[in-house]
């Protein structure tokens, strides 16, 4: 009995301590998150963390406890004094708790968050989102804004870049580059569209068009935080590590100015 009490107290104290430390830092579990989708993932991550912490501490403590409390003074092969093969309560609690926890994790965060995620998507779809056509090719991301007539958004040096207005829903259409519908293996492989700061990625599969919704909710760009970038996450050949593009989340007036600038660039390119 003594062991159980000591173990229980140490476990409770350590768990409380760990939870306290975690609570102070949990806004930064994902380092930097600036979209509604990212917040969803972050809250799920933090919820799971605070529930898994006691389990983790339990197992770690058991290993340490065995090394300290249950350690034999010498290596003589003497049988242990306690020879239990069964403990109904221990088994009952273990099995019951593992079922209960797993079912809970499946209902919340998994089921609840998936439901929230796709409800968000439906609502964002209804709010006339900004449409960005994203085309992946080896090894480049290309961004096209059909509502503004911008075929390929680039900066002054001609490098692809993406700019999004803050707090406005965005719908990304993800396609693989195949302008002549040749379905050549040399034209299309799997890429994965990932913006680390937005907390989501989706594979881009040759021959498929997929869409993705989210709302960026902070002004930021690649220079303020390097997580604000488009990064290919699925290996796509030797150019894979170079397949990234800067992203800027800006205010609505800044976005309007950027669109005007893009139009000017496009006209200049067309006129030249």
């Amino acid at each position, binding site marked *: 009995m003594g062991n159980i009490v000591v173990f229980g107290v140490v476990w409770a104290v350590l768990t409380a301590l760990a939870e306290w430390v975690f609570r102070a830092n949990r806004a930064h579990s*994902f*380092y930097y998150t600036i979209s509604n*989708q990212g917040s*969803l993932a972050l809250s*799920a*991550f933090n919820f*799971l963390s605070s529930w*898994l912490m006691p389990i*983790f501490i339990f*197992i*770690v403590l*058991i*290993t340490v406890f065995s090394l300290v409390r*249950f350690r034999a003074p010498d*290596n003589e*092969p*003497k*049988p*242990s*004094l*306690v020879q*239990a*093969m069964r*403990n109904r309560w221990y*088994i009952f609690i*273990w*099995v019951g708790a*593992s*079922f209960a926890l*797993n079912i809970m*994790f499946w209902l919340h965060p998994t089921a609840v968050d*998936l439901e929230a*995620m796709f409800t968000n998507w439906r609502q964002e779809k209804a709010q006339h989102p900004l449409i960005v056509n994203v085309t992946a090719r080896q090894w480049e991301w290309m961004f096209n804004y059909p509502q503004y007539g911008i075929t390929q958004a680039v900066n002054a040096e001609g490098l692809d870049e993406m700019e999004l207005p803050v707090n406005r829903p965005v719908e990304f259409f993800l396609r*693989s580059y*195949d302008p002549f519908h040749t379905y*050549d293996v040399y034209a*299309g*492989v*799997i890429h*994965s569209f*990932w913006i*680390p700061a937005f907390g989501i*990625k*989706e*594979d881009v*599969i*040759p*021959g498929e068009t997929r869409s993705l919704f989210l709302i960026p909710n902070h002004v930021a760009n690649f220079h303020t935080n390097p*997580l604000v*970038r488009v*990064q290919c*996450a*699925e*290996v*796509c*050949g*030797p150019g*894979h*590590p*170079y397949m990234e593009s800067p992203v800027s989340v800006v205010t609505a007036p800044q976005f309007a100015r950027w669109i005007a600038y893009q139009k000017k660039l496009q006209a200049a390119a067309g006129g030249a």
Partner: protein
Amino acid sequence: MEQQMTQAEARNNPQTKVMHIAPLFRGVIWATIGFVVLDLLTVAVDPFRGHPLVTEPSEVMGWAGAVVGWLMGVGGYEEMILPLFGSPSTWVEPKDWRKYFGLSTNHKVIGIQYLFTSSSIFFVGGMIAMAMRYELMQPSMHFFTYAGQYLTAVGIHGSLMMFGVGTVVLISGLGNYFVPLMIGAKETVFSRLSGLGHWLLPAGALTLIASPLLGYWDTGWRGYEPLASQDPGGIVFYYLGVFAMTLSTILASLNLAATIIFHRAKGMTWARLPLFVWGILTVSLLNLIWQPEIEMTFVMALLDKLIPFHFFDAMGSPLTYLSMFWLFGHPEVYIIVLPAFALWNEIIPVMAQKNLFARDWAIIGLIFVMMLSGLVWAHHIFTNMRNSEMFPFSFFSEMISIPTGFSFMAAIGTLWRARLRLTTPTLLVLMSLFNFTIGGLTGVYLADPPINLQVHDTFFVIAHFHYTIIGGMVFTWMAAMYYWLPKMSGRMFNETWGKWLALWVFIGFNGTFGQMFLLGLDGMNRWVPVYPPYLKPLNYSVSLFAFFLGAGFIATAIHILWAWTKGPKSPENPWHARTLEWLTTSPPPDDNFDGEVEVVRGFYRYDHDEPSAYLVKSPDPVE
């Protein structure tokens, strides 16, 4: 009746011959001949003249010829082909060290061959990992010249470790050596097949290691299509190498499963079967189902590459390849780790001299993990799925942690209030429990789709699966090597060195892979030799720990090799264990037991002094 029987067995009529050439050399020569003959034959029937002498199709055919030549050369000709046609086998198994360098029918020799080959593969794969970590110390290319070289290194590292180490050491290696001993068998059912199967492993590993000669392939160990179809010829050797290694595993599993079912000693009922044997039986069944699956998938991918067909590119369905790969891929990780779970509960009761707690639950856990493992594959491709599809896979992925937990439950129940002897195997098993807990709990995050969509394909995932495989399996492998070293060699290791080395590896391991979780969350994606500079400090520190870890593995290997050859003599049963392998001498004689084994009670009771089995020495054979 008995007269007819002896006639039916051609091997009873030995007309032995002396080998004038070492089997390995003969194997190399015959393999070369096989390659040249089939390669030229393919070129000869090539309808389009003017191709070079070695093309992708001809190298596949040539490779098949080389493997057949190699297998025949190392002894398959005498041991398989001659008996198949009814001639007596002329193969002589040497009694000295040479027995390890040719086809053997003794499961202990085969086990050591597997352990040696696999450890060599582990060394090569580890050195490749060191090169990768060295490259990642800087955010730009500074060690490899091309990104393709780095990606090839990643692919070879992953494939070697998965198919040449993870699937092999505990099953074909320790399983081959100890399962027959633990069930009181004198030999295995398909001894010759198993002996031949070992030689597929070095063939496959060498194929993979040679793959860069044919061009850098960049898909990693998963060979995702359509990228693989785009890759140069190296990818062909990836398919072929993995094919040979998985075939080796299939043969070993078939032999072990049949042996467990038919060669148990008298009184070795299912209720008394040791845990490790249960572990090997469950994973053998998994191997028999899933390894042929991946082989056929690779055959189709190879056809996509060579002909080319269009099963898996944009004209077919890339997602089909992904599903077919992970249908095998997820059971694969349980194939790797289930024997380790079983070994925890094999070693802990011995070291604690305490009854194994809830043995039935531990076995149920193994069986249910085996059954559920085929239902979770799609959590590897959440980034390709619809809402409705994510629900069930997320459900099964989370549920599989329940039977996994049963192994922990039994281990912890046994540890509780034990008189635990703190030996090196104990320490390593406890470390393995610790590491696998981290690997398992981070798996709960990954099973949740919204989190998965952020951390998928990042270093978070790399850290997660290295925690389960190195942390779970490799640590247990080391524990088992120390635990069974006295049995395999008759010698003992140095406890002080053993513990310090274990601590060394533990610190190196957790330093390396613990920080990788942070890297992944901070936006470091996989398969990149070049990354944004803000990730450099953390990568630099990971690399330093990785070198420390690598050195720790080498030091451990040196310690084990030293103990194996020069260590102090060990007593017959140094751990006071009760399972059958300790009933015989160390190392065991050729036919394992000098007499008949009879099991009278289970092996996991330490509350009495009655022996669990008797060895009845028979003065004259039963005949």
